């Protein structure tokens, strides 16, 4: 292999794929980056067998070839080179890479590129949907945090992506809460398709989407084993989780006995204040809704927490309360998580009694639902 490219481009590509380089693995080749000539360009790829990132940079190719070398070492060396052309050379039938820029050069011992996992490419026969990158990023951020962090039920450690008609639905649940967000696809897909993507991979995808504006293409490989996302000159791959996602629609209450509407900022502040006291009491914050005294006076909700050892707090937030008075207790961390990803505005909390799941929704914005299981309120 003999290739030359700009230092700047190589540095950027190596930084981009570095997120997929495995740090701790028993398969040493996963700590490497793949450099391969590909149709007049240089392909740079890395994978940790959960996600894979492939990117292409312009290069002048004198001799075809491929090699894998330690990703960190190569990136560190390239980062310190001046902004000038860099020549990459591999002697035939050898696995060591010579990097040269002006008078600086390095020889990095590598591994046969054949040992590197085959990263599938986005090709014609895959299932393809197109979506706006900023919408997708938003959707991911509003859903992924609800996925389970322990691995006892692998399916729940993932985010469900459901393609149906002109809609993409993302859903995640960990047994105590559920986040569902719907978004528009650029054009309808022919059949319904479910894919469960690891939550870690979803976060990585959101990072790659960054401030992209061009529509991104999502594809599921024909054997339904991987999700491929094409973002500009970069392809992101995530392996899918095998299994069936629970039927989340059953969990979402259809209607609420009591509806509370209030400003998100004020409510989030009140919950944060209470959460400091709740820390020593299993993060329990109590919410008590009182209707206004007359028809046109606003109601209020009381957000309180107490820990026997530490003390207690009460905050009041103005809210419009419809329905009977209600009280319910939630885990403060769950409330802070969901209120944190909602934009400034009004939020709706729907309650059906203190033992039924509560729902958090942004007011006036369709498509996002967050369900939280209540905590038991003691006799207190």
């Amino acid at each position, binding site marked *: 292999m003999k290739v030359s490219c700009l230092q700047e481009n190589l540095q950027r590509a190596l930084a981009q794929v570095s997120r997929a380089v*495995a740090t*701790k*693995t*028993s*398969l040493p*080749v*996963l700590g490497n980056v793949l450099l391969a000539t590909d149709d007049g360009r240089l392909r740079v790829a890395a994978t940790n*067998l*959960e996600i894979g990132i492939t990117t292409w940079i312009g290069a002048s190719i004198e001799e075809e070839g491929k090699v894998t070398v330690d990703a960190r070492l190569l990136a560190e060396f390239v980062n310190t080179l001046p902004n000038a052309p860099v020549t990459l050379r591999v002697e035939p039938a050898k696995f060591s890479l010579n990097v040269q820029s002006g008078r600086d050069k390095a020889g990095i011992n590598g591994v046969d590129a*054949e*040992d590197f*996992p*085959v990263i599938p490419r986005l090709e014609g026969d895959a299932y393809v949907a197109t979506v706006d990158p900023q919408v997708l990023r938003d959707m991911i951020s509003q859903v992924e945090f609800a996925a389970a962090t322990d*691995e*006892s039920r*692998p*399916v729940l*450690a993932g985010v469900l992506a459901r393609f149906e008609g002109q809609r993409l639905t993302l859903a995640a649940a960990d047994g105590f809460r559920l986040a569902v967000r719907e978004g528009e696809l650029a054009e309808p897909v022919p059949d319904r398709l479910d894919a469960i993507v*690891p939550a870690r991979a979803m976060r990585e995808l959101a990072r790659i989407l960054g401030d992209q504006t061009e529509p991104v293409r999502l594809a599921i490989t024909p*054997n*339904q*084993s*991987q999700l491929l996302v094409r973002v500009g000159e970069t392809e992101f791959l995530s*392996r*899918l*989780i*095998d*299994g069936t996602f629970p039927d989340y629609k059953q969990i979402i209450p259809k209607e609420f006995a009591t509806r509370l509407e209030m400003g998100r900022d004020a409510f989030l502040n009140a919950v944060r204040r209470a959460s400091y006291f709740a820390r020593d009491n299993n993060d329990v914050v109590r919410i008590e809704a009182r209707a206004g005294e007359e028809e046109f006076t606003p109601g209020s909700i009381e957000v309180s927490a107490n820990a026997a050892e530490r003390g207690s707090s009460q905050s009041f937030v103005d809210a419009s309360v419809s329905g009977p008075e209600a009280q319910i207790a939630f885990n403060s961390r769950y409330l802070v998580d969901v209120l944190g990803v909602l934009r400034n505005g009004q939020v709706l909390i729907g309650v059906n009694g203190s033992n039924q799941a509560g729902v958090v929704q942004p007011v006036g914005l369709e498509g996002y639902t967050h369900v939280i299981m209540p905590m038991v309120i003691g006799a207190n």
Partner: protein
Amino acid sequence: MARPPSGAVKTAVAPTRSPNGWPVWGHDVVVAKLRHSVASGRVAHAYLFAGPDGVGKTTLAVSFAQALCCQDGTRPDPGLPCGTCLACRKIARGVHPDVETFGLAAQAALAEKSGGKHLSLSIETVRRLASATALRPMEAGRRIVLVEDAETMQGVAQEALLKTLEEPPSSVVLVLLADDAEALLPTIRSRCRLVDLRPVSRATVALALVESGVAQEQAAEIAALAGGRPGWAFRAAGDPALLEGRRAAVDRALGWIAGSTYDRLVAAVRLGDAFQKRRAEVFADLDTLLGVWRDALLLRANLPHYLTYRGHAERLDGLARGWDLDALHRAVCAVQTCLSDLEANVRPRLAIEAMVLQWPTSSPQR
């Protein structure tokens, strides 16, 4: 993550393809069954390969994985992997992303701090396995997960594995490798297809070595010492030190039984004191001892054909002539009793001394 199966034969002397089609010598019935299940597409979701160390568990599992993942669509028998396609080569080298091995070696490699002792598969390893098995395949149509040293799992680790065994993802084939199937919970055994690997005949082991280019005479000696374990035979053929160590162990055992009652007791005390720190070595020594007494019995009964330690036959023959069959039989029984006593946590020094005192006295009766 995938890693080279550590139990696999990795020496200059590698097994060639055996008459049963796989590079697995002996175990013909097992290979035929596995080949048939691959060919007919009726593959169970979990297997338990059980048999002594070196009998061929890992080799069998690697061949099975190759048969399941081989990319050569034109091969006449789907149960027979081509051995040359990318998938087959990657599996043989232990770098296939869809053939992952979890075992003590992999656990040590991934451990936070190196150098720690890894005597049993931990619950963390089992959890890592569970989350790794949840993913769909990367390159092949299936994923094969090998669990080496499965018998070392403690109760909680085994219970954690049960969950994966109960609801395995559709694309996964789990293969547990255990020296002793009985060490696993009945609930685990009942969820796996049990594949019992028995010691391979001496002739087959010798043939396997000859086919791989080992000289006839050496092959015969190694095969006799291997005790029906082709894996051990291949390791010994590629590693003279291993063979030498075995010969030295036999010499030690011979020296022990040739000594006077006093010498025997001194040796017994020494071995008994070493038991706590080097349990496995003491067991290996007693095992060798059992073989030597057995050989003495065989020599006395004029059955030299079945000898394990041919190289030492002459010296042993001189000893054996001094004792009658009954005495030799009692000695063999004494060693066996000692082994089971040690398993049952009898005080090692006591168990070994009691054994020594039941041996026939070394002064010839003639």
